[in-house]
C-alpha cells in the first residue's frame, strides 16, 4: 500500500512538474515567436566580421545563439538593437551569444557609423555579404530574429520588433539554457 501510494505521489508530482514546465511560454514580448518545424542545415550558416573573416554558426556550438538581422534603413531594427545588447550583458556568454548581422547592400560605412553611434558594448558588427544569408534563411522582412539551440538547430524565429531585454524573453531563454 505504502509503495503504491509513494509511486502514485511520485507520478502525480512528476505529472504536475512536467505540466508546469511543459514548454517555453510565448507571451508578452515574445508572443510573435514561431517555432521551426524544419531541420536546419547549420553548416551553411556563416557571416562576416569587419575584417572580412568568415564566421560560422558552428563555432558557437554548445551555446544558445540569437541571430538578429538588421539594416541601417530599418528603424524598428535600430530601435531594438540596444535591447539585444542589454540581454547579452545580463547572460553568461559561455551559454548564450547574440549575433547581430547587418544586411545593407550598399554604403556599409553608413551602417558601421550608425552601429557605432548606438554605442553597444556587448555586440559586434557583423554583415551578410550580398544577401547570402537572408536568401538562405528566407528572410524578407526585418527585423527578424532567429534563435538556435545548443546543437545549432533553429528553435524558431520572431519577425518584427521586440524588447529583448524583458522578463518574457528571459523566461523563454532560460527554458533552453537549462
Amino acid at each position, binding site marked *: 500500500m505504502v509503495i503504491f501510494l509513494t509511486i502514485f505521489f511520485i507520478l502525480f508530482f512528476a505529472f504536475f512538474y512536467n505540466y508546469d514546465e511543459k514548454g517555453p511560454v510565448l507571451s508578452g514580448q515574445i508572443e510573435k515567436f514561431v517555432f521551426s518545424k524544419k531541420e536546419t542545415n547549420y553548416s551553411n550558416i556563416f557571416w562576416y566580421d569587419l575584417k572580412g573573416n568568415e564566421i560560422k554558426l558552428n563555432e558557437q556550438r554548445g551555446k544558445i545563439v540569437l541571430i538578429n538581422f538588421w539594416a541601417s*534603413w530599418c*528603424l*524598428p531594427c535600430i530601435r531594438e538593437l540596444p535591447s539585444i545588447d542589454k540581454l547579452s550583458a545580463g547572460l553568461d556568454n559561455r551559454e548564450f551569444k547574440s549575433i547581430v548581422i547587418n544586411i545593407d547592400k550598399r554604403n556599409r560605412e553608413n551602417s558601421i557609423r550608425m552601429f557605432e553611434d548606438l554605442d553597444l558594448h556587448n555586440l559586434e558588427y557583423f554583415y551578410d555579404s550580398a544577401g547570402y544569408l537572408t536568401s538562405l534563411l528566407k528572410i524578407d522582412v526585418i527585423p527578424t530574429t532567429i534563435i538556435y539551440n545548443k546543437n545549432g538547430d533553429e528553435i524558431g524565429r520572431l519577425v518584427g520588433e521586440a524588447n529583448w531585454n524583458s522578463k518574457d524573453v528571459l523566461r523563454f531563454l532560460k527554458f533552453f539554457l537549462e
Partner: protein
Amino acid sequence: MIINKILYLFFFGFLSILQPQNVLANSSEWVDYEQGKIRLIAENQGKDNLIPYLGIQFSILPGWKIFWRSPGEAGYPLEINNMNSKNVIFNAIQWPYPERFEFGGIYTYGYKKDVVLPIKLDIKDLNLDTSISINLDFLTCKDVCIPKQISLNIPNLTFTQDKNNNIKYLINEYLSKVPKRVVKLSEDNKVFFVTNREGSVLKFYMLKPKIFEQPDIFVETISGINFEKPIFNILNNRNKIEVELPIKNAKKIDYNKLINNPVTVTFVSNSKAEEYTLDIEIKNTDQGNSTELSTIIILAILGGFILNFMPCVLPVLSLKIMNFLDKKSLDLPFIKKSFLFNILGIISTFLFLAVIIILFKLVGINLGWGFHFQEPMFTILVLLIVLFFSLNLFELVNIKIPYWLFPNQNINQRNSSDYKVSFFNGFLATLLATPCTAPIIGTTVAFALQSSYLNIILIFFCMGFGMSLLPLFFVFFPNFISYLPKSGKWNIYIKRILGSLLMLTAGWLFIVLIKQIELYLLMILLIIIISFYVFIFFQNSNRWKINNILSNFTVISVVTIFILSVLFVNHKNNNNLSSEIKYVNSNKINQYISAGKIVLVDVTAEWCITCQVNKYFVLERDDVKMKLNEKEVVLIEVDWTRRDQEVLSYINSFDRSGIPLNIVYGKVTPKGIVLPEVLTKEVLFRAINIAKGSKNLAEK
C-alpha cells in the same frame, strides 16, 4: 492581411477581365505587394503632344509607408531600373514634398496612403512604338521593414488625344506638390551654422509667406546630417521668419563636407512647397542680441561682486575694514556712514565711466573696456598711488600723504574728511577693478556697449551695485567688525600680504607702462620716484635703525631686480609688435588660409588680466605650443596695450568691445571662429579642428 490580399486579387482580377486592355493602354496593371499596390500610369497628352509624364502610383495600406528621396534617419527611396523599355528616356523622379513621421524622437520622411511619383519622359521618336518595362526597388515599413522588388510594364504607349483624362489630372495633382525651385531665398541666401551651449543648429531667415500654416522644413545635406524638428520664430517685424534646426549628434559631423557643400532646403506651408539651395556659413556663438537684458543684469551684479576679490581690488577694501579694527570702541553709526560713502564712491565711479563711454559714443568713438589704461598718464597716476599705498603698508613711507588720498592710522580722529576718504576709496577700488575684466564682466560690458545709452547706464549701475554688496554688508551689520580679532600681530602680517598684492599690481602697471611710453620717459619717471623715495627715507626719524635700513634695502633691491629683468625681457620681445594689425587687416590671413594653414589671431594687451591668464593656462602650455608650432598653425598676436583705432575696429567687427579676443581662421572658416573670452585647451583644439575641417572632432 491575407484576406486583403485575396480581396485585391479578386477585385483587380475582376477589373482586368471587365475592362478591355486598350482602354488601359496608358497604365500598367496594379501589382499587389501585400502592404499595398502599385502601378504605372502615363499621361496621354502633353503640351507638345508628347507623353511628358509617367507616374508611379501607390495605394498603401494603413500604417505602412514608403520613403522620400531623403528618407531621414532610416529607410531608402524608391529606385527605378530600366529593363526593356523602348524608345523612351527616363528623367529623374519629381518627388512631391514628404510627410514627417516621428517615433520616439526619430524622424523619417515619406508617404502613406496614396501617392504618385511623377517622372518626366523623353520619347526618342514619335513614329516608333514605345513601351515601358521597369523594375522598382523600394522599401516599405511599419513595425517591420520589407524591401520590395517589383516589375511593371506598359507594353504599348498610345498618343491619342483624350480631353477627359483622369490620369493627367492625377499626375498634375502630385506635380503641384513637387517643391518649386526658388533661386533666391533672402538677401544673403545662406544657412548659418551656429554652435552654442546647447549644441549646434542650422539657422536661416526667410520671408513669411502669406499663408503660414502647418509649416515644415526638410534639409538635405551631402554629409547626411539628421535634425530635430524645426523651430519657427516669427521675428519682430512680422514678415520674417527665423528657422532653427537643431543638429543631432553634432559632435560626429564631418565639418569639411558640411561647409563646402550647399544644402537643399524644402519648405512646406499650406500644402505648397518651395525648394532652395543655400550655402552654409559658420557663424559664431550668438552673443548679445539673444541674451535677455534681465540675465545681463544678473550677470552684471554677480560680476561686480566678484570684482571685490580681484587681486588689485582686495587690498583697497580690506584695508578699509582693518582701519576700524584699530579703533578702541566701535562707533556703529560712523562705520555705517563710512561704508555708505564707500558705496557712493563705487557707484558714482561706475556711472562716471558709463557717461564717458556714452559721450565718446556720441562723438562716434567706440571706447573698449579698460580704455583708461591705454592712457599713459592715467597708468602713471595709478601706479604712483598703488606704489605709495603699498610702501605705506610696509611702513616704509611714514610721511603724511594728503589725507584725502589714504585712510591711515589717524582715522581715530574723525571729521568730515573721513567720508571723503571713504568716497575716494570706492573710486580707487573701481578704477583698479576695471582692467581685471572678469569673464562675466566682459560679457556684460560687451552687451552694454552695444545697446542703448539707457542700458549702458543701467548695466554699469548694476555692476556698481554688485561691487557694493560687500560694503553694503557692513552697512547693515556693522557689528560684524567687532567679531574680527582686534589688531595685533596678525594685523601686521595681513598688511604685509596686502602690501605685496599691491606691489604686484604696481609691477603689472609698470609692465603696461613700458609698452605705452618711450624708454627715456620711463627712466625719468623712475628717477623721480626713486629720488622721492630717498627724500622720504631721510625724513624718517628712525632712518638709521638696522631694521629700517634692512627692509628699505630689500624693497629697493627687489624693485631694481624686477625693473631690470622686465626691461631686459621686454627689450627682447619688442620687435615690431605694433605691425601685426596690418597682417590681420590685409590679405595676409587669406594667403595663409589658401596655403592650407590655420591662423590663430590673439588680440591681447598688457593690462588685460584675463589675457595673461589665457596665456598662462592655455596659449603658453607645452602641448598647445607644440600644436601652434606645427607648420600648419600660424599665431598672430595683436597688441592693444596702446590705443589703436585699427585694432578696435577689428575687435568691433566681431561684435566685441573688449579683449581677450581669439579668432581661428581656416579653409573651412574664412570668416573666423571667435573663441570665448576665457580659453580652454579643448575649446582651442576644437576650433582648430573645425577650421581644419577635421572629420572627427573627438580626436585630441
